[in-house]
Structures are given as C-alpha cells and as structure tokens.
C-alpha cells in the first residue's frame, strides 16, 4: 500500500478538487485533545515527530474517515501508551467506566 518514496500523507502536488471553505467552531472535546497533545509533549512523553509518526501510520483511510481531532486523540493515545503513562488495559477499563456514565459527552464528565 505504501510507496516509501511518496507516502500517502505526502500529498503536495497531487490533483484534488476545490478547497472546501466551510469551517466549524472547535468543540470542547477537540480543544481538550489539543491541550493534552501540547501538555503531553511538555511532560516529555513524546515529540511532535511522534505525534506525526502515529498519524501517518494510521494510513489514508483514517485521514478520509476520521475528523482531525479524532486522529489526534488516537495518536495521543498511541504515544502515551508507548511512553508507559498508562497501559492498554487501564485505557480499556477507563473507557468502559466513562461510557457507563451516560450517553452524551456532557453526561460522562466526572
């Protein structure tokens, strides 16, 4: 799938359609992801290169199907697990605990 000389994220020069001009206001959960990515780097757990490495390894399908901060939270998680901040098991247990609290983002805040 991947040409090492020209990986999918290296899209400069590719043909593409008109630039979509619609924007959106960032949701609080997106702002939190952004903050956690900055703070996780400040804590020394990963670098911006680590963030990008995980984003690029997700592949083109993730780029097409996930939103920007969905990809960022996935990369953040990958980097924090690799850094040993928490384990996959701890993440899984915590996500189950969070989900059990309610059906909306607002309802599950502790």
């Amino acid at each position: 799938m991947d040409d090492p000389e020209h990986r999918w994220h290296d899209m400069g020069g590719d043909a593409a359609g008109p630039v979509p001009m619609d924007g959106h206001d960032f949701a609080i959960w997106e702002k939190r992801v952004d903050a956690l990515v900055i703070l996780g780097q400040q804590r020394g757990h990963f670098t911006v290169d680590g963030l990008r490495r995980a984003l690029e390894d997700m592949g083109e399908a993730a780029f097409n199907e996930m939103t920007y901060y969905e990809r960022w939270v996935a990369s953040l998680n990958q980097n924090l697990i690799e850094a040993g901040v928490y384990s996959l098991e701890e993440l899984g247990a915590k996500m189950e605990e969070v989900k059990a609290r309610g059906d909306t983002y607002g309802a599950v805040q502790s």
Partner: protein
Amino acid sequence: MPHDHHDHDHLSPSGHPYRKDNDGALSYWQTMEVAIRELMVEKGELTPAQIQAQIDAMDARSPANGAAVVARAWTDPEFKARLLANGSDAAREMGFDIGPMHLVAVENTEDTHNLIVCTLCSCYPRNLLGLPPDWYKTREYRSRAVREPRAVLREFGVDLPADVTLRVHDSTADMRYIVLPARPAGTENLDATALAKLVTRDSMIGTGLPKGA
C-alpha cells in the same frame, strides 16, 4: 461551548453551524479523550487546572496577535528588519509567547506574493495566530497549493497578476511561516492600531490581501 442554540438556527455566535460532536451521542473518540484526561490526572501527570489553562492560552491566541506584529512592521522599519531576520524573536519582543517554534516572516512586495501551506500535515503559526482554519488542513489545499497555487488563490478571491512572482512556502513542524502582507496604498495617515484592523488572517497565510488592498 454554548448548547442552547435552538433560537439561533443552529448557528454558533461566529455564524458557523455547530458540529454534531457538540450535542450528539457520545462517540468512541470522545470517550477516549475523557479516559486519557482522567488517567493523566489520576496518575499525577496533569491537573484539571493545567488542562484548562492550556485551553485558555490557545483560545487567547488569534489572528489579532499577528495583525499587531504586521502593523508594527508597517510602521517601524527597524522592527520590520528584526521581524524578517528572526520572526520568533520579533514576536516575543511584542510579548507573544510563541514557544519553541521558528517563525519565519516572508514579505509581500509589489512584485512578489507569498503563500503558506503544510503539504505533509497541518503545521501553522498556531502559537501566534491560533488554530488553523479547517481548509488549511484539507487534502485539497495541501495538494494544490504547490501544484496550481494561482488557481487556489482565485478560489480565495485573489487574482494575482501574471507578472507577480508567487512563492509557496511549505511549513514543517519546526519552522512556521507567516506572510508579511504589503501595506495597502493610501494608508499613510493610519497609526498601527488602525492598520492592524486591516490585517486579516488570510492575508498572513497568503490566501488573502489586507482590507483596502
């Protein structure tokens, strides 16, 4: 974010529609964000106050910061020389905390126009201007800004004369560009505060021109 938008035709105060992320059913990725945040707090990595402070710091950054830098450069030749020599230090001199990134200012003149892109990801002078617009992160902009930049500029309403040189700068994680737009003609009597109001976000990316230009 406000949730009581029922009286506003589902538009936010900025006129954009709310994304369904704000109000819809809890998503897998939102669940992951909550879990990561809580784990980091439980493990003593971060406090909720630190996280909120980081959000507040990012929210406080806006194109107005860059506009102040541009207006100062238009009115203070020595500052302009320092900005073009070392954008990071010049921004810090004005009190903007731009972190470790290298800010490189590129100057538009009568015969040269500059355009900024990050073809590999979404690198942007976010510590000065705030978070990038959504279009900056799209496949369409990233791909075409280096392939047919004049056509891209036309989509943004900028029809660059054929005899104007167009330079496209591809950002990296460590090096973030900002365009120093040309000062519009007829603004000789305006002070820096009034001039800053002419400087738009897009004029500092190169996809736009200052108001009045």
